[in-house]
C-alpha cells in the first residue's frame, strides 16, 4: 500500500503539471492559513484580556453589606448593618468547599485628596487594607523584599505594613533601605516589613502598586473598627463553583443579620467567576467563528482540489483503462486517486500552517519590539490546534478525492481504451 512505486507515481502525476498543482494547492493553503491566523489572533486577544484579570483567583466572590430594603422580624427597612468577625467563622462552619474566607477592612486614600500616610516630610494618600495572610492567594502579589503578613502579626496585633513598590518610590529616596522603617498611617506608626509587586496590568495598574497591607487585627484596633468587617473575599475549592456556593453564603448572612430571605439588595456581591465565565464564553464564540470562517475558506480550496482531481482522472482515462486491462484492481486505482488527493491536500495544508506560523512569529517579534499592546498578547496556536488542522486536512483530502476516485473506477476499461 505504501510502497515506493505508488509514491513515485503520485509525485509523477502531481509534477506533470506543476503550475496547475501549485494553483490548486494555493486554495487549500490559503484556507488553512486563514484558519491558523484567525485562531492565533483570537488567542492573542484572549491572552490580552485574561492578563487584565492578572493572577486573581477567578473562583472568587466579594461580598459587602448594604441597607435592607424590606422590613423583617420587627426590624424596619432601610436599616444598615455590618458584617462581624464572627460571620467569618459562621460561613466556615456552615458552607463547605470554601478554600479561603478573608475578611477585609479598608481605609480609602488613593486620589481621594487628603493625605493619609506620612513619612518624614513626604506624604501620600493610599488605600490601606486590614488583611489576613490568605489574601495573598486571592489577590496574588509578588513579595519583592521582606515578607508578607503572617499569623503572628494577626495574633499579636503587630503594627506592621507591607507596601507596594509605587509607595516605595513616593516616600523613599532611590536606593534607600525600606525594611524596618516606619510610616505613619492616620497618625499611627507602622513598621514596614515587606514590599510587593502586582502582576495585573489593567487600568488600575498604578493604584494596584500603591497599596498598604496591615494585619486585620491591628487595623481594627488602630482605626477603631472593633468587630466590624468591611467586606469579604471568598474563594471556593477547585472543582466547586463559587457561583453555586454564593447562594448558601448569602443565605447564611441573611439569616445571621435578620435580613428578609427575599431581600436581594441588602447584601452586595461581585462574582468574579461569573465575569470570568462570560469572557470565557466570548472567546469560545470567537474561536467558533474562526473555525467556521477558516473551514469555509478551506472548503473552497477542497472543492478546487476535487475539481482538479476530476480533470486529472479525465485526462488519465485511457491510462486507467490500460492499467485495468493489465490487471490492476479497481481498489488499487481508487486508492491511488485518493492518496494523490490526500497528499496534495496535506502538503498544501502544511505549507499554509507553516506560512501561518511564520506570520504569527512575525507578529510576536513585532509585539516584542514595540512593547505591549493593549488587549493583545502573544498570539499563538497550540499543538492541539495544528494537529486538529491536519486532521481536518486528512478528512478533506479524502472527501476531495472521493468523487474523482469513484468516477475513475466507474469508467469501464473497454470504454477507456476506445478514446483515441
Amino acid at each position: 500500500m505504501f510502497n515506493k512505486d505508488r509514491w513515485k507515481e503520485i509525485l509523477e502525476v502531481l509534477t506533470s503539471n506543476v503550475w496547475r498543482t501549485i494553483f490548486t494547492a494555493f486554495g487549500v493553503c490559503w484556507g488553512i492559513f486563514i484558519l491558523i491566523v484567525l485562531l492565533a489572533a483570537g488567542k492573542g486577544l484572549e491572552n490580552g484580556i485574561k492578563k487584565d484579570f492578572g493572577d486573581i483567583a477567578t473562583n472568587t466572590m466579594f461580598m459587602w453589606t448594604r441597607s435592607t430594603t424590606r422590613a423583617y422580624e420587627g426590624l424596619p427597612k432601610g436599616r444598615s448593618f455590618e458584617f462581624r468577625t464572627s460571620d467569618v467563622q459562621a460561613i466556615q462552619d456552615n458552607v463547605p468547599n470554601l478554600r479561603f474566607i478573608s475578611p477585609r477592612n479598608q481605609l480609602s486614600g488613593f486620589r481621594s485628596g487628603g493625605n493619609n500616610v506620612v513619612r518624614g516630610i513626604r506624604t501620600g494618600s493610599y488605600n490601606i487594607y486590614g488583611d489576613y495572610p490568605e489574601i495573598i492567594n486571592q489577590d496574588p502579589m509578588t513579595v519583592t523584599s521582606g515578607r508578607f503578613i503572617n499569623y503572628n502579626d494577626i495574633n499579636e496585633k503587630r503594627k506592621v505594613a507591607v507596601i507596594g513598590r509605587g509607595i516605595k518610590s513616593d516616600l523613599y529616596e532611590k536606593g534607600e533601605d525600606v525594611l524596618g522603617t516606619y510610616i505613619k498611617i492616620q497618625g499611627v506608626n507602622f513598621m514596614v516589613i515587606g514590599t510587593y509587586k502586582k502582576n495585573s496590568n489593567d487600568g488600575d495598574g498604578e493604584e494596584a502598586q500603591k497599596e498598604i497591607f496591615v494585619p486585620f487585627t491591628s487595623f481594627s484596633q488602630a482605626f477603631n473598627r472593633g468587630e466590624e468587617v468591611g467586606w469579604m473575599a471568598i474563594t471556593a475549592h477547585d472543582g466547586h463553583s463559587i457561583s453555586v456556593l454564593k447562594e448558601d453564603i448569602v443565605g447564611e448572612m441573611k439569616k445571621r443579620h435578620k435580613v428578609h430571605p427575599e431581600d436581594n439588595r441588602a447584601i452586595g456581591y461581585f462574582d468574579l467567576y461569573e465575569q470570568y465565565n462570560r469572557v470565557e464564553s466570548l472567546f469560545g464564540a470567537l474561536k467558533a467563528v474562526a473555525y467556521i470562517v477558516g473551514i469555509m475558506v478551506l472548503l473552497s480550496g477542497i472543492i478546487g482540489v476535487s475539481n482538479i482531481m476530476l480533470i486529472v482522472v479525465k485526462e488519465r482515462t485511457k491510462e486507467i483503462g490500460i492499467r485495468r486491462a493489465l490487471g490492476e484492481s479497481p481498489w488499487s486505482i481508487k486508492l491511488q486517486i485518493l492518496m494523490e488527493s490526500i497528499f496534495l491536500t496535506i502538503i498544501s495544508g502544511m505549507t499554509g500552517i507553516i506560512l501561518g506560523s511564520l506570520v504569527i512569529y512575525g507578529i510576536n517579534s513585532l509585539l516584542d519590539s514595540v512593547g505591549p499592546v493593549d488587549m493583545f498578547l502573544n498570539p499563538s496556536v497550540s499543538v492541539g490546534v495544528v494537529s486538529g488542522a491536519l486532521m481536518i486536512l486528512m478528512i478533506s483530502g479524502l472527501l476531495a478525492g472521493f468523487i474523482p476516485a469513484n468516477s475513475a473506477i466507474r469508467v469501464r476499461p473497454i470504454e477507456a481504451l476506445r478514446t483515441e
Partner: protein
Amino acid sequence: MIEIKDLHKSYKMGSNSLHVLKGINFSAKAGELVAIMGSSGSGKSTLLNILGMLDEADSGEYTLDGVPIRDLSETKAAQYRNKFLGFVFQSFNLINYKSAMENVALPLYYQRVARKERQEKALNYLERVGLKEWAEHLPNELSGGQKQRVAIARAMAAEPKVLLADEPTGALDSKTSYEVMDLIQKINDEGNTILVVTHEEDIAHMCKRIVHLRDGVIVEDKKVEQVRASEYVQ
C-alpha cells in the same frame, strides 16, 4: 485453451439494438496462432474484447483454460486478466510517463512481485524483444515499432496463457509490421497461444489459422501454411 459456445452480444444504441455477435462457436488449442479477420463492423474487436474480459457477452459460454468466465466482478476480472491474458493494442497503449522497463514491469507490480524481481524480469523480457538498451527510455523516445515491441514484452511479462493482439501492426509501416510479426511468431514458437485481430491479408497469413468473421458469425475457419515473417526481415 479457449472454448466459446454460442456467444451473443448486442449493443443498445438509443431505441435500436445492434446485434454484433450472433452465435459464435470457436475453440483454440494451446500453442495456436490464430488470425481473426473481418471487415470493420464484423464484430472481431467485440469478440476480442469479450475474450479479453474487457466486455461481457449477453449469452453463451466462455471457458479459458478450463475456468468458466462469467459474472465476474471488476476485481475478479482484473485478477483474471492479469493472470491469464496479455494485451497488445494497435495504439501500443504504453503509459507515457513510465520508462520502457516500468511499463513492462507493470503487470508484475499488480501481481505484487517484489521490486527487484520485477525489474529483473522486465529487463529479461526487454532483452528478448531486443530493447534492453532502451529500458530507461520513455515511450515518446521510441519509434512505433519499438513501442509495439515494448508492449509485447509487457504483455508477456506476466506469463499469460493467451496473448491477445488487436491490430498489432495497424499503426506500423510494412517493414516494422513484419518485424513485429516475426516477434509474435517467435513467441508462438515457444508454445504460447496467440490471437491476432487484423484486416490485413499478409499479416493473417503469417498465422497458422485464419478465422473469418462477417456480420457477427464465423463464415470461414481454415488452417493455412504459415508465412514466416523473417523472410521479409533483413
